[in-house]
């Protein structure tokens, strides 16, 4: 587990626009996991911080149980809504196979927040494809970066009574890695989730945060 006390404001290294510091965040998961809701929250937090923000996602057929990718860019001035391969500073994966699938977007040495939760695709459950072993995933992620944070979002959210809050557990971890004031995030989350789930989401957020700040309990 890694600890970070500063907000990384990386120049997009391969882009010539070196004068524009930015933070590229790629969120990925499986349709139905709340990937898009999470990216809405990340985008709103960027606005609250005073960034120019772009958030790109694809709707439609890809959402029916397929891979979902949402991209958020924070910067002084953001042009392309799409993060070029190798230029994401953070990869937040709500499912571990999807972390591997999206890995080409991460810059070497970037940060990964990944849920060890597995959702086998139909090509595995009713086909001949093989879901990669944990060790395989770990080795592959480690090839790109040593900064891999395994956050059991689904397990924690189930403990709290609702697996759907898993995405907010990972956002809690993300906010801690950025060394952000939790109230900034909670303010945005409160606006985005229904009243009756407010407490659940606050707990989920705090649990994710604690995992980064104090390590696993």
């Amino acid at each position, binding site marked *: 587990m890694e600890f970070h006390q500063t907000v990384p404001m990386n120049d997009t290294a391969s882009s010539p626009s070196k004068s524009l510091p930015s933070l590229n965040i790629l969120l990925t998961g499986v349709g139905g996991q709340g990937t898009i809701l999470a990216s809405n929250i990340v985008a709103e937090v960027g606005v609250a911080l005073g960034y120019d923000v*772009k958030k790109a996602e694809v709707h439609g057929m890809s959402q029916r149980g397929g891979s979902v990718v949402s991209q958020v860019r924070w910067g002084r001035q953001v*042009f392309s809504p799409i993060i070029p391969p190798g230029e994401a500073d953070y990869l937040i994966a709500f499912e571990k196979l999807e972390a591997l699938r999206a890995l080409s977007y991460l810059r070497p040495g970037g940060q990964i927040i990944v849920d060890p939760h597995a959702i086998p695709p139909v090509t595995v459950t009713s086909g001949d494809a093989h879901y990669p072993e944990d060790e395989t995933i770990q080795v592959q992620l480690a090839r790109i970066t040593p900064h891999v944070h395994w956050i059991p979002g689904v397990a924690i959210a189930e403990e709290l009574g609702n697996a759907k809050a898993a995405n907010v557990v990972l956002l809690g971890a993300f906010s801690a890695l950025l060394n952000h004031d939790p109230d900034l995030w909670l303010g945005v989350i409160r606006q985005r989730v229904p009243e009756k789930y407010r407490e659940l989401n606050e707990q989920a957020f705090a649990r994710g945060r604690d995992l980064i700040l104090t390590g696993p309990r």
Partner: protein
Amino acid sequence: MKRLLSGNEAVAHGAWEAGVRVAAGYPGTPSTEILETLARFPHVYAEWSPNEKVALDVAIGAAYAGRRALATMKHVGVNVAADAFMYVAMTGMEAGLVIVSADDPSMHSSQNEQDNRQYAKFARIPCLEPADSQDAKDLTIAAFDLSEQFDTPVLLRMTTRICHTSTPVEVGARRQEYPPLIDKYPRNPAKYVMVPANARKRHPIIEHRLEELAAYAETFPFNRVEMRGRALGVITAGVAYQYAREVFPDASILKLGMTYPLPQKRIRDFAGRVDRLIVLEELDPFIEDQVRLMGVKLWPERVLYPHTKSIFPITGELNPAIVRESAVAAGLLPEPQAGEKQVVRGEDQAESPQPLPAGLKIRGNGHLDLPARPPVLCPGCPHRGVFYILHKLKVPVNGDIGCYTLGVVPPLSAIHTTGCMGASIGVAHGAAVAGDKERHVAVIGDSTFFHTGIPALLNVAYNRSNVITIILDNRTTAMTGHQANPGTGRTLQGKETREIEIESLVRALGIDEVVTIDAYEVETIEKTLKRWLKQDGPAVLVAKHACALLPEERKKYVSLQVDPNVCNGCTICFRIGCPAILKSDKLDPKYHRPLAEIDPLLCTGCEICARVCPRDAISFRDQVLHLHYDP
């Protein structure tokens, strides 16, 4: 106040601020959220029409009546609406009319990749292209003004990346309450009745209008020059503008808010102020062709791609990486130096110092062979049973557009043709009347049936073909996110309305052999289809069950269970392709096949697996509920 809005939400805000009164459309990715957003504003009438042609006629009627009107659709929807699109270009209107075409480069959710800017040129009307959400709002307002100033419909051309990217937008109040621009519906046949004698007089008028628009384009404030260095000049529009800024930060840019007609003087002037001039645009060389026709020299003079696009690909979405690679390939940018090259891609095994772990393979392109995660029919999807039976019966199936197109995915593999909205029934009819010896099946969803299926089924009834039509009636327009349709009993703006009953509609079309069966009743569906396969004449099965994702259906979820002592791993339940059915680690002691197991988080309790299981190893809902309540 600045708010983060998607391009679609921004168009809705722009239309509202511009005083739009009537908005109509048909749901289609990536356009759907425009009307969903606009429908919630006050003083606006917004509707889902049964198809895009009807929607555009509705908007035209409102504009004839002197009220600002908006029609929204995805790119292929404009094909459906094209007849209306062409006549309204001829007639003009009494108040502003804006037609939104949401194109889908890379076909994230579409059957083709057409560049609808060509429609503007085809119909001689202006085309505006926003580059982000603020632009989308501003250009929507500008489009209404332009429409009234020049008495022309205006095409607002969006793309997936603009529609579904959120960027900050300054939102405002409605500029004013717009009273109707006329007191009385026009009685002006010379303008509005396109009989040949009148139409012949209108055609020169719209050609002249185009010249005036071209002159206006020179001063249109959303055509903008950004001078930086003079080494490179880029003419660009839409999302490509963003890629131009990112990849060529020192280039001067002519950003076109209007891509048809073009401001010729400004282009020539810009060309004279830079050493090398290129055009950066997605899909067709729409701007590029026009600029070359003007005789303006673009760099390079040789053409790299087929057709006439010189530097950038003609297919697929662009992104900064593609723009950069294309510019390097064309010699516009230098090759990246070894040191700054960022090829450390996660999937790039060539760079890997590690031996490959067991269970992973490398594909031909050097990427890791990860198990694909294609979109699939959801757990509990009421379409699943029909496709399982169709696969079993080995009949030719002509499909249509909707979630149920996923019936093509293995293991169901039960769709053999799919073209466009409403095509299934006509195509099946064509194959049947051609004398094809197999009995043809058409499969179409409820909303698609209302869209363009009805005339095709009328044709089957009228011309008596041996087509079996299956209407998958899940009581909603599911694929695009559960929009209302004539079968749902409510309108876009939440009003209760007459719920159209499909079976009686089918009878009224002239088909006597029609039954409605609950879509989960796979045995009855199989029996009915087998009976029809032995007889001649048109027949229609309405397979009816509400989409499993609708809130009322979610309340009924019960997770079923597999009895591991009864299951022998025969694999039949795997063949329904349900994401909730997993291969367990346990093997059958006799055959050593993996037993089935059910993911309790995903299972909805639709019972299709239980119905097809030959050993009754899967519990039914009643059994599960009984176990739960009476342990």
